[in-house]
């Protein structure tokens, strides 16, 4: 078990390095660099920019050095815990992110929680009470959720949220709480603002999990071991929750890593549409301006989250399925 964990962490570190290189390369790939982007922005604002000024910027940030040298110096400082200095915000990257990362995490994991807390029980219920009203409704709403793009869903929910529930559109705090100390009222206000982004991010995933859970459950419910469990005197409900559910959870758990990926990659768009002060808008900006330290750090954080998600999924699978446990153990 510990050995398995160790192996997994080992390979995660290797992939993390490879990934950092690809990230760095990709951000550099478009023609020009931050200095050009800066000059273009100034020129667009009507300022006059001399080539000397541009060259100055380029030297200050070390953008004139060869690609590999830049990469090594960046990754070297990342390893020492220094994420670098954001050109765009004129602040250390860690400052920019520390204001925004918690919100991103709250929204992503909130969405993930909704996906499983709603998806799994609804899937079980839909399978056991097949062709019931709940089953049909779940299917119907699920298809809508799957088919609607997130940004559109965000706009729709903002509209109805405000119309029906008076939820304010965008942001994470109502104006009156801005700059106030954290009181219960402020926390409640904060949480109600999270409802829409979490729903937007979680709907597609929930729909997918309901489908998966329902279909594997339907397969498992007809297996002889369910009848044979009932023959020992287990009531229907307990027999279903104890035996087939555990088997049906296996494909769900196996894909937690992917689900986290899709939630995280969906998050920036939702953040932008809802103008949330999370990492989404910053991420977009940093890519547009080729603000390498910031863009690279954000991508690395996203990747780290995916690695953690995959690890969690592996550990859960381990606990759930003895066959996997055994194959891992025999592989030692």
């Amino acid at each position, binding site marked *: 078990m510990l050995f398995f964990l160790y192996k997994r962490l080992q390979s995660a570190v290797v992939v993390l390095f490879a990934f950092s290189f690809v990230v760095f390369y990709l951000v550099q790939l478009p023609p020009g660099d931050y200095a050009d982007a800066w000059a273009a922005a100034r020129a667009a604002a009507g300022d006059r920019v001399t080539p000397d000024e541009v060259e100055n910027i380029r030297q200050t940030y070390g953008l004139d050095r060869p690609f590999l040298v830049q990469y090594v110096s960046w990754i070297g400082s990342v390893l020492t815990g220094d994420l670098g200095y954001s050109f765009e915000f004129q602040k250390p990257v860690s400052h920019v992110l520390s204001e925004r990362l918690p919100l991103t995490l709250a929204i992503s994991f909130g969405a993930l929680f909704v996906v499983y807390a709603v998806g799994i029980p609804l899937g079980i219920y839909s399978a056991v009470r097949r062709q019931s009203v709940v089953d049909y409704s779940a299917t119907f709403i699920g298809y809508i959720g799957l088919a609607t793009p997130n940004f559109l869903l965000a706009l729709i929910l903002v509209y109805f949220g405000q119309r029906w529930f008076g939820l304010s559109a965008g942001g994470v705090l109502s104006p009156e709480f801005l700059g106030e100390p954290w009181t219960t009222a402020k926390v409640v206000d904060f949480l109600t603002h999270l409802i829409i982004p979490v729903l937007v991010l979680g709907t597609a995933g929930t729909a997918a999990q309901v489908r998966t859970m329902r279909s594997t459950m339907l397969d498992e419910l007809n297996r*002889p071991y369910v009848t044979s469990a009932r023959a020992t005197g287990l009531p229907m409900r307990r027999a279903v929750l104890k035996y087939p559910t555990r088997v049906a959870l296996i494909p769900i758990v196996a894909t937690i890593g992917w689900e986290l990926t899709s939630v995280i990659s969906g998050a920036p768009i939702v953040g932008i549409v809802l103008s949330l002060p999370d990492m989404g808008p910053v991420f977009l900006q940093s890519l547009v301006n080729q603000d390498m330290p910031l863009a690279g750090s954000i991508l690395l954080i996203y990747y780290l989250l995916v690695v953690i998600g995959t690890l969690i999924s592996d550990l859960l699978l381990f606990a759930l399925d003895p066959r996997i446990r055994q194959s891992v153990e025999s592989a030692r």
Partner: protein
Amino acid sequence: MTHVLNIKDLTISLAGRPEFQLVSDINLTIARGETVALVGESGSGKSMTSLAVLGLLPPSTAIKSGEIAFASEQFGQLDLSQVPARRMNKLRGRELGMVFQEPMSAFSMVHKIGEQVGEPLTQHFRMKKPAVMAKAAELLDQVGIREPEIAVERYPFEFSGGMLQRAMIARAIACSPKLIIADEPTTALDVTIQAQVLRLLSQVQERVGAGMLFVTHDLAVAAQVSDRVLVMQNGRLVEAGTTRSTLRNPRHDYTKALVAAVPHMAVPGRVARDETTSHDPILTVRDVEVKYPGASSFTGKKAFPKRVLSNVSVTMQRGSIMGLVGESGSGKTTLARAVLGLVPTTKGEIEFHPSQGETQTITGLRPRALKQYWCKAQMVFQNPYASLNPWQTIEETLVEPIVQHGLARGAQARDRARAMLEKCEMPGDAMGRFPHAFSGGQRQRIAIARALVVAPELVVCDEPFSALDVSTQARIIALLKQLRAELDLSILLISHDLAVTSSLCDEVVVMEHGKVVEHGRSPEIFVSPKARYTANLIAAVPRLNPYETPASETAN
């Protein structure tokens, strides 16, 4: 004598459609300590009847009328057809113990054996986990599972089929039930294990003093365990009586047919087949060894390789039917797969001698050459429910190999497929339908047609009858015999059923632990087996008249 179970005029129909009767007017009594066998083909309603007793009928069916009287310890006299769900849960597992057909699928693979065997104790006596595990180990010990304390912590996929069936029996008797219902408990097992399980069932039944309802399609098995026999056909009882008299003097035509369909072990003095079968081999297997490597891992280490076949040498004559017998795990399937080039051999040679052309060495053949070889050597698989693609029509299934091997195309290929289907005694209009429209026997005919449609010389049949009823089995055997004569086939038949083998094969190879222990002509080898292993196998075969030849004397 007081009855534990007394079924009166039980009728089961489709839910909401009482005119569709699945089981009609069943009457059945079981006394304490008595075993009653319910015999019939699949679809005769025998399993339905047993599930009705447990209150576990599928939701698409319902009890239409009748009474299932049960003398309950907790609640006195009950009619199980009327008992509410809550009370039924108190009876199942405690007073009604059930043993299911396929132990491999009747256990959850992801829960510990101990937890599952102890489930009735958790449920009925509210025992805590450590106590349940301890009691489960005790139960496993009673059914003859070694090292029970370790076994309870293991998972079903680590057990063999026979061990799992023992564990299932342990679960059924966990609360000392008043009635044990066993639904085809040995159908998925091979002969020697079957004999052990049957003996075990009778022992535990005697120990807990329960009545037993034993459902089976195999009359010989019923003869072994039961006091009385009830024969079902199309949802009705057609004959009932003591086991001895019913099997000796069956009155109803259906029972007579069933008795006749039971394959008999070869008897001395049977007409020997013409000895002129010349020495014209079609297949030579020389010193073949197959090793499976242990599971390799990403760390590059390997577990111990497992030797499945060692030094196997066999010669098969053209036009003959050769039987390959042995318990599961004896390597007979591996040998058959090696003959078809499906398993890489680690030593030795396998040669195929076609009627025209040169001898071919199968071992080490490249994929392209193997494909050509498969036009001459084909396989029929064990389970016709799994071996036919449910999404392909019969026509697609049959035409595919013809086209694949470049034998014909379009209408010509279709004609060829239809002709073969008809030769296998299936109507031509079956071509447009899907496998689910057919019964097990019909599916096996289709599977045979698929194998023969490319006109092979050698056909390997891997337990082709084991998923079929006795009477269906008899018809498929007849078909195979007929096809062999018509198409000049050589058949390699894998079977754990010695009775079938003895009646069908010219020669028999007996295997144990990956080695050939005996090889001889069919009648003789069963009459005077030389190897002790063969003698044990023969002794384990259930017989219709166990009174005259006690089957179990030499078995242990």
